[in-house]
């Protein structure tokens, strides 16, 4: 079996399992999760085989694995779709396969497989716990099998996106993931907040998606193809696209397409201003959050712009002026990174902090790409997937532990509020240590965490290429990141338990903690494949494999930025400084956030996410509803158009009435009636002849007879 055939097989197991579970095994939890995990494992296995084959190829970027088949007959040709594994998709496949598998395994324990069914549990709501031997214990999720079906479809979507060789099937995977995020965020659909969050996610990303569709269509129309190799590895074509003006003044065709595609990423990767759906998406079960916000969906947005980088940067040369799309990306990415980090400072919910952190980190990647740091962005994408998935799964473990405590003590506290936690490090050691590793990786703790290497590289690139504003913004965001991460760790795990539930928390089951450990290994080690060559001391010890490999994706291998001590020092400073500050401020925190009073009104602004949700509601949502019902339907259709039709009908009606009342009735009808009445009056007159008296009749007879006789005789005599 060739590698190309294997590539085609990667997304299939989860797709099959999706149908199998929904059609056949939905009532059997064990069978369903076996199928689910089995499918994830199979895809992982095939993915690893493909990856191993890929890294063995010299200069994979120049001859990647490809295979395609004709799909849509259009015009004279057939539009082909196929698979492509080049360095970028190979590393993406790697992290997707691992994180997806870990999430599948984790879901078994998360949804309490093996636990009894809760007495009051209904499908559509999260399980409330069951009573076993007089104790309150966690209960199994009522819609257990359905969950595995949906995450299987989700995995299918992501795999399809990663292995695609063209934008169309990438978009197919993109949208299928959008559907799955809708289905999974709204997994507990009976909760109004979950239902609304699901719709919000779908609709917000759809804004991005419709622009992206236009971009895809524009690209197809301009070049006649959507195949990556044919477009992105054709410098002449890119040159032409970059120099042809488009319908929008000031933008070249490449710029317009790039912009449209980028808006898709803004939606999918929750960048400002389309970021509002991601925090609400925390309504979904935690494995979903891990899947959507780390492993797959938001990464897809970044993956797409990484993939389309040659187009977005068409016309840009290293060290030169950024194209318009790149400028926009740098701006939005950096802004979002800082913006989201500020909000994360004030969030109480353990998952929400991570949500905003994701938005912020994605901003990093986008900003990196915006300034042309291709490899750095890809690197951060990979490391972020690992440590963010780790953090989300870890938070899920924490929540589970807290819920256990809640059930045990009967105390009704929000199990997700960090200010109800504390001291969990002793109760949940594995979770604690893995979470710390993940959190340090996120903060960029030097040398031993993957996040350091990738983040440092971005900062170095920004500084080294002179994009100082971006550098500064990202550095401040890094400081805040370390701060709120330590805040999170301190509030959750350190100090004393703030509630009875926290005091009675317990470690999660192995199916949940094992994935944490695996991911923690990656969170530490993944960075070591990308140590820059010029790094003092360590550079050169391990080959900078990542740069070599992923850099080979582009036609021109990007140059590594020259080493500069300043960004390194800044990076170290913000990471360590932020962590230390976070610990100092929060180590004695009680139920109230110590920052609340000092920051005052600013704290309220940040806590309410700069009121963007409220603004969007007032500016977009409500007017749209009014526009839809009031204007389009009631006014235009009912009043204007139907009103016109009714007026025409009424006119016809009146015309008919006039004809009836003024012509038909008097003239035509009248004439008929007149004739009849004349005949009738004659008849009335004439009938008087019939008296019924025989003698009278005889008299008439006699008169007529004799009269006739005499008349005849007289005539004959003449």
């Amino acid at each position: 079996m060739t590698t190309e055939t294997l590539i085609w097989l990667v997304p299939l197991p989860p797709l099959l399992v999706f149908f199998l579970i929904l059609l056949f095994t939905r009532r059997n939890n064990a069978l369903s999760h076996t199928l689910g995990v089995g499918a994830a494992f199979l895809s992982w296995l095939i993915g690893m085989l493909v990856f191993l084959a890929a890294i063995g190829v010299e200069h994979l970027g120049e001859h990647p694995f490809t295979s395609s088949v004709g799909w849509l007959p259009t015009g004279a040709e057939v539009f082909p779709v196929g698979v492509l594994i080049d360095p970028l998709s190979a590393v993406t496949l790697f992290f997707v396969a691992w994180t997806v598998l870990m999430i599948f395994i984790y879901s078994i324990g998360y949804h309490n497989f093996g636990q009894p069914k809760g007495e009051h549990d209904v499908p559509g709501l999260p399980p409330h716990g069951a009573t076993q031997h007089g104790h309150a214990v966690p209960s199994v999720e009522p819609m257990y099998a359905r969950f595995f079906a949906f995450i299987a479809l989700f995995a299918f979507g992501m795999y399809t996106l990663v292995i695609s060789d063209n934008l169309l099937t990438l978009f197919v995977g993109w949208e299928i993931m959008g559907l799955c995020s809708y289905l999974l965020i709204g997994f507990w659909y009976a909760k109004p907040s979950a239902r609304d969050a699901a719709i919000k996610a779908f609709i917000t990303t759809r804004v991005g998606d419709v622009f992206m569709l236009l971009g895809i269509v524009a690209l197809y129309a301009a070049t006649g193809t959507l195949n990556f190799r044919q477009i992105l590895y054709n410098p002449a074509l890119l040159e032409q696209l970059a120099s042809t003006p488009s319908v929008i003044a000031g933008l070249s065709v490449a710029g317009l397409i790039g912009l449209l595609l980028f808006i898709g990423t803004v939606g999918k990767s929750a960048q400002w201003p389309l970021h509002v759906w991601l925090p609400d998406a925390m309504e979904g079960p935690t494995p979903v959050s891990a899947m959507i916000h780390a492993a797959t969906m938001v990464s897809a947005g970044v993956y797409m712009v990484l993939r389309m980088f040659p187009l977005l940067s068409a016309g840009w040369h290293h060290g030169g002026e950024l194209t318009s799309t790149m400028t926009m990306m740098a701006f939005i990415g950096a802004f979002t990174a800082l913006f989201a980090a500020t909000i994360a400072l004030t969030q109480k919910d353990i998952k929400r902090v991570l949500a905003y952190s994701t938005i912020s980190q994605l901003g990093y990647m986008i900003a990196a790409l915006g300034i042309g740091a291709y490899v750095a962005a890809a690197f951060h994408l990979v490391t972020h997937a690992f440590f963010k998935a780790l953090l989300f799964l870890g938070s899920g473990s924490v929540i589970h532990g807290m819920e256990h405590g809640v059930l045990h003590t009967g105390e009704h506290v929000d199990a997700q509020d960090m200010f109800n936690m504390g001291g969990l490090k002793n109760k949940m050691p594995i979770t604690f240590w893995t979470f710390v590793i993940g959190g340090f990786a996120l903060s960029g703790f030097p040398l031993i965490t993957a996040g350091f290497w990738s983040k440092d590289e971005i900062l170095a690139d920004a500084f080294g290429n002179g994009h100082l504003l971006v550098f500064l913004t990202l550095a401040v965001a890094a400081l805040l990141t370390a701060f709120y991460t330590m805040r999170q760790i301190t509030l959750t795990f350190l100090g004393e338990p703030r509630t009875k539930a926290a005091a009675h928390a317990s470690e999660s089951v192995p199916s949940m903690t094992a994935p944490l450990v695996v991911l923690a290994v990656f969170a530490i080690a993944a960075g070591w494949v990308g140590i820059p060559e010029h790094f003092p001391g360590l550079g050169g010890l391990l080959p900078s494999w990542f740069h070599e490999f992923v850099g080979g994706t582009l036609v021109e291998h990007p140059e590594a930025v020259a080493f500069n001590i300043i960004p390194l020092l800044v990076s170290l400073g913000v990471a360590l400084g932020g962590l230390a500050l976070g610990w100092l401020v929060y180590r004695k925190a009680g139920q109230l956030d110590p920052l609340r009073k000092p920051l005052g009104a600013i704290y309220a602004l940040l806590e309410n996410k700069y009121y963007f949700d409220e603004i969007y509601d007032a500016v977009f949502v409500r007017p749209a509803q009014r526009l839809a019902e009031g204007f389009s339907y009631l006014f235009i259709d009912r009043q204007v158009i139907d009103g016109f039709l009714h007026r025409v009908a009424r006119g016809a009606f009146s015309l008919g009435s006039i004809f009836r009342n003024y012509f038909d009735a008097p003239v035509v009808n009248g004439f008929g009636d007149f004739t009849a009445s004349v005949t009738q009056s004659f008849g009335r007159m004439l009938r008087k002849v019939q008296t019924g008296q025989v003698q009278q009749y005889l008299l008439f007879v006699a008169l007529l007879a004799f009269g006739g006789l005499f008349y005849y005789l007289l005539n004959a005599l003449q």
Partner: protein
Amino acid sequence: MIPLSWYLYLAAGLFGLGLYGVLARKNAIAILMGVELMLNAVNINIVAFWRYLTPQNMSGQAFAVMVFAVAAAEVAVGLALVISIYRRRKTVDADEINLMKW
């Protein structure tokens, strides 16, 4: 010989009397009697013409006998009808038997 015209005058006179009876009498039986008179007048006419014009043929006599028979039958039926009407309406006044009017 008595001239033919005398018989004809007689028949005409009888016919006129009969016609008057039919048209002017109230009693239905009297009307029937008038009809009888008219029939007899006709008979006299037939016989007179026969005797004076074609005495050798039998047709005149035969016809007169037929008229007798018809008259008898007709009177029988007529009287039966009158009796029936009388039983129903307790009257034989012709003016009162006028149901078939407008």
